[in-house]
């Protein structure tokens, strides 16, 4: 199944949890969670697919203060497989409790760094054999990276100040390529027209989609037209 772009889901707190559920369904994860910190707005956001019982326990015990999947993972630029945190006493503390609630200590946290010191953390967990986990990890990690940035950008831009700062700026090459897409050209055609490699076209489109907080190229084209970065057709 395809994951629905966040901006098309009904505007409510529930949509982030719904988005996380879709990630779980698509990538065969048991649970997913997002935590975001936005120092410009002074806000912290959290969304989880966990049961209320665990969420309550986590809050009551103040586990967020020690949880290394938050405090350690944010210092990495790469996704942090939780096996890397195993030796930490804080990890033991959090996941001893977690296992009482039937949660696995096998998972990954993907750190996202935004332009204004904002940080987002997308975690996903799955109870399965180590080999199965390795395979799944390799298979889904690239897409999870994109999903992490997608949810983070959306959460951060719900803050008015940050939203104003987040105004997307396309380079002239990005705008040029998106304009050719709007004119109905394929990536191959665009590469030929501009005498650049197919991969260069792809990399610029990926960047444009992300700047416009879109998951698909047609959505990116629509938004770019809407805010006047390119012209229709």
């Amino acid at each position: 199944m395809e994951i629905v772009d966040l901006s098309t889901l009904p505007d409510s707190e529930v949509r982030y949890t719904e988005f996380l559920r879709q990630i779980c369904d698509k990538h065969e994860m048991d649970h997913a969670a997002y935590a975001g910190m936005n120092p410009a707005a002074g806000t912290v956001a959290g969304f989880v697919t966990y049961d209320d019982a665990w969420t309550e326990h986590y809050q009551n015990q103040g586990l967020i203060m020690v949880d290394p999947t938050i405090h350690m993972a944010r210092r990495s630029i790469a996704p942090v497989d939780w096996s890397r945190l195993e030796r930490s006493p804080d990890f033991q503390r959090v996941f001893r409790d977690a296992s009482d609630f039937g949660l696995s200590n096998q998972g990954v946290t993907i750190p996202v760094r935004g332009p204004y010191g904002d940080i987002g953390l997308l975690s996903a967990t799955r109870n399965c054999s180590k080999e199965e986990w390795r395979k799944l990890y390799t298979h889904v990690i690239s897409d999870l990276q994109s999903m992490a940035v997608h949810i983070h950008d959306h959460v951060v831009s719900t803050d008015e100040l940050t939203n104003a700062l987040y105004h997307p700026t396309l380079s002239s090459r990005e705008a040029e390529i998106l304009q050719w897409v709007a004119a109905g050209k394929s990536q191959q055609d665009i590469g030929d027209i501009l005498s650049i490699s197919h991969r260069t076209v792809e990399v610029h489109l990926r960047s444009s989609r992300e700047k416009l907080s879109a998951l698909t190229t047609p959505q990116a084209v629509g938004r770019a037209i809407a805010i006047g970065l390119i012209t229709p057709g």
Partner: protein
Amino acid sequence: MIIVVDGLNRHMFSEVLDEMFELRARVFGERLGWDVNIQDGKEIDEFDHLDPAYVIGLDDEGNVVAAVRALQTTGPHMLSDVFSAILCGEAPLRSATMWESTRFCVDTQRLTRGKDKNSVSYATCELMIGSLEYAKNAGIQDIITVIDPVMDRVLKRSNCAPYDYVGKTVPMGKVHALAALLDCTDERIAGLREFAGIRNDVFIDEDDALALFAAKKAAARAPANQDHKPLTDLEKYFVEQMSAATTEAERQDVLKLIEALSNTFTPEQKTALLQTPRAFAHEA
């Protein structure tokens, strides 16, 4: 060997990082003449305070011989800031699956010419393989790297030509700088490995790296055979056994034998033999 040092493990490898910052001072400050900030012989900039990841190449003794720094392109990085001249004022690429690599450097003083294990070419290829594999395992698809034209030629020669460039080549210090695009695909990594003849896993794990640095420090503290007395036959025998050992178990056996016969050595000889078999091997 390649070790990745990031915000999670940098407290364990601060001396390695210092060595890398010193190498960067020599390369970017002196050799390339870039306008970089050097203090106490170390080149450190504001991006080093943002918990980047460093992919660091080590020689067999644990010396830093090559290094590069990686940052996410979704947040603050060099092309969005200090290298904006390369992009002619245009907005940089931003992607969850693209990292920026900067401060790529190799120790041309310590390394030799040619293609063998202690050469500039080998260290460069090993570092490239390490960075591409580290990125690929993190789900990264492309790297945008800021390099000088010499490095660009080295990449082309090493079966690792950039698939494109972004912006233009601008003067920087005694050289020029440009931004090149590299995909993190199996094909590119295989091409590099074939060129350099590197088939093994290039990464050294944290524990092995710590052991290597401990041995290096011990060797520096108490240089083996400091007074250059000729080695006794027994010492020579141990050195031979140590160099012939191919597994950790064999190495441990030699160490046990040294312990068992320890009353035939002076305390200094024993310490030297146990701590720095490599240094001894070097002199034998």
